[in-house]
């Protein structure tokens, strides 16, 4: 979804190509009714949980982390405004699953476990998601100049899985936030010139969008 979708043909004309697949497309029949304006919100507990998961993906280091960048509230807003009911449900189910996994392994809710235990749980979720997507024959396809989509077998996978959504929205939310774009990346609002070929300086960060 990031700029890849934003730019598509425009990116092509302008020489901007991006690599990773960032969108999921589902076969016919799996389309959920759009939920424009539908009520969707997190409970305070879910809000804290989402912020925590995002911080695990992009933690505060020498630069700000996901919490500093307000990624939690951003994820909630995006799910509410830009996603379909299936994805919203997948996300809520994913959060519940984190608590279920934590309870099973440690007898407490996710938020009450240690940071190391949380990482283990998330690793497990990532592994399961990879399996899930493999089984659904996820294939990266081009649907336009520079728009990639992942096509999946919709009978085997209902909507984008939780972990994938969490990761995509965290990266997107973080690197396009003021904190992420200006502190973790090289943000140049008005470059003023174009140099096509320059040596990559040591420690040079990627440009923000």
């Amino acid at each position, binding site marked *: 979804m990031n700029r890849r979708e934003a730019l598509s043909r425009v990116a092509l004309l302008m020489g901007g190509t991006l690599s990773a697949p960032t969108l999921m497309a589902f076969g016919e029949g799996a389309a959920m009714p759009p939920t424009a304006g539908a009520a969707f919100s997190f409970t305070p507990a879910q809000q804290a949980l989402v912020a925590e998961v995002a911080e695990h993906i*992009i933690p505060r280091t020498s630069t700000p982390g996901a919490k500093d960048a307000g990624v939690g509230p951003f994820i909630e807003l995006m799910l509410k405004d830009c996603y379909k009911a299936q994805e919203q449900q997948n996300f809520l189910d994913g959060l519940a699953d984190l608590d279920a996994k934590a309870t099973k392994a440690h007898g407490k809710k996710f938020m009450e476990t240690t940071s190391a235990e949380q990482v283990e749980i998330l690793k497990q979720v990532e592994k399961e998601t990879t399996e899930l997507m493999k089984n659904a024959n996820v294939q990266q396809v081009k*649907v336009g100049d520079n728009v990639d989509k992942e096509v999946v077998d919709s009978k085997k996978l209902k909507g984008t899985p939780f972990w994938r959504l969490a990761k995509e929205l965290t990266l997107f939310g973080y690197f396009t936030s003021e904190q992420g774009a200006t502190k973790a990346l090289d943000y140049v609002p008005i470059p003023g010139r174009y140099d096509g070929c320059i040596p990559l300086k040591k420690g*040079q960060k990627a440009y923000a969008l």
Partner: protein
Amino acid sequence: MYLNIDAQKEMTYDAIVVGSGISGGWAAKELTEKGLRVLCLERGRDVKHVEGYETAMKAPWELAHRGRPDNQSAEEYWAGIRTGYTVNEEHRYLFENDSKNPYLETRPFDWIRAYHTGGRSLLWGRQSYRWNEEDFMANAKEGISIDWPIRYKDLAPWYDYVERFAGISGSKDGLDVLPDGQFQPAMELNCLEKHVKSEVMRKMGRTLTIGRVAHLTKPQSIHTALGRAACQYRNMCMRGCPFGAYFSTQAATLPAAMKTKRLTLANNKIVSEVLYDEKKGRATGVRTIDQNTLEVKDYYAKIIFLNASAIPSASILMNSKSSRFPNGLGNESDQLGRNIMDHHLGVGASGTYDGFEDQYYFGRRANGVYIPRYRNWGKDKRDYVRGFGYQGGASRSSWGRGVGMEGFGAAFKEEMTEVGGWNMGIGGFGEVLPNENNRFTLHPTKKDKWGMPLVVFDAGYGENERKMRIDMKNDAAEMLEAAGFKNINAYDNTKSNLGIGIHEMGTARMGKDPKTSVLNAHNQVHACKNIFMTDGAAMTSASCVNPSLTYMALTARAAAFAVDELKKKNL
């Protein structure tokens, strides 16, 4: 009928220009500069240069959804969403809401519109190429459709003229297939693009060049006099350019026309029909509907330039019925609304490249590379006619790559802030053949909220386009392979519809014979010489290069002719 003579006088101009987009802006500039009092009627709101560019200076985090379309917009902009980018938050305000401006599809057509001052001149990709000599002769040589009434040499001086004023940057490549023009200094290729350029030339004899774009790289006094400055390489052009660095109506033609003090721009005026005087045998003016108040008002002029873009311009003539023209003004050939063409795209390849790890670039170049047509050119012969060119570019990946990767945490974050590997994509832009059965009509009963009949599209790709796509896909992969790319992903998105190229044209084609065409060699309606059409409607065939530069040249040429004819009292 009661006629208020004074009021009518007030509504009378030397010329009326319908639409203020790329072609309308040129018509307004040329006609006013040649001394005419011109009324430009624009159906949409006024978007003022700089102050009207609502999102131009916004940082990514200042947009609620960081640019992404929300569900509600995706529903309202039901045609726009098909492009995958025009409904995004940063520039959606300059595109048309399809629910408020519906159209019908017998066969699906992606109709991407922008109704406001400047039209799509604020939104276009600015790729600007001349047609070549063959483009004007292909129809006649191959016996397809009808012959153009003009040749390259008729347009060449006008290309020179519009290129200088618009400011087209590019490199002179000395190719017959892509004639050189009056260029501003070219933008630079990056190091991977330079590598690909030399490899595809060495191994395949094909040219790769920097895109020729309507961006000022070294403004001249004709540009700075209008307040235009050099490109700042922000690549946020679709939001409107506060520097006036790319060619748009707002930055270039409108200020030039305004300088003459002979231009009146009237916004929110939807032109519904051209008024035809049967006794005089000529058009006398146009009827308008105010888009907000629905007030109907007529305006009068000696000549009328229709520049509402291909579909609306033809619609206006179709809707102009009289006993002389029961099927629409100038439609005796029954060609009005037919031969819709576009450029087909959504087919090409991308890949990754190992190497040049220590090379980067600075600035966001609002331009890519161009690989001119080589198929069915010279000795090359295929099982289809015409050809295609590629547009694309190379860059290093960024955090976007992380979505599909495994891992999270501090090390993962660190990696995402670093510069990723190189990749490149090239996508074909293919020529679509004219076909009488690709057309639109006006619905007999269904109307929009202004009482205008709805446009019904019935057009699609043909066999020639389908055959061409095989080469478009394979050749792209081959070239990347030849240049040493890995993980090559060739694609052909067959789900896109005609229209997706946003280069619609051909609905009132030019030709020598009034029996088979709507316009003559000077873009006059054959049967009503004081109406000129110089937007995409006029095109007799489509070439494979982006069309708007040709609309500019046709417009400037027709305007000069019109003023001459007026002086000679021929109109």
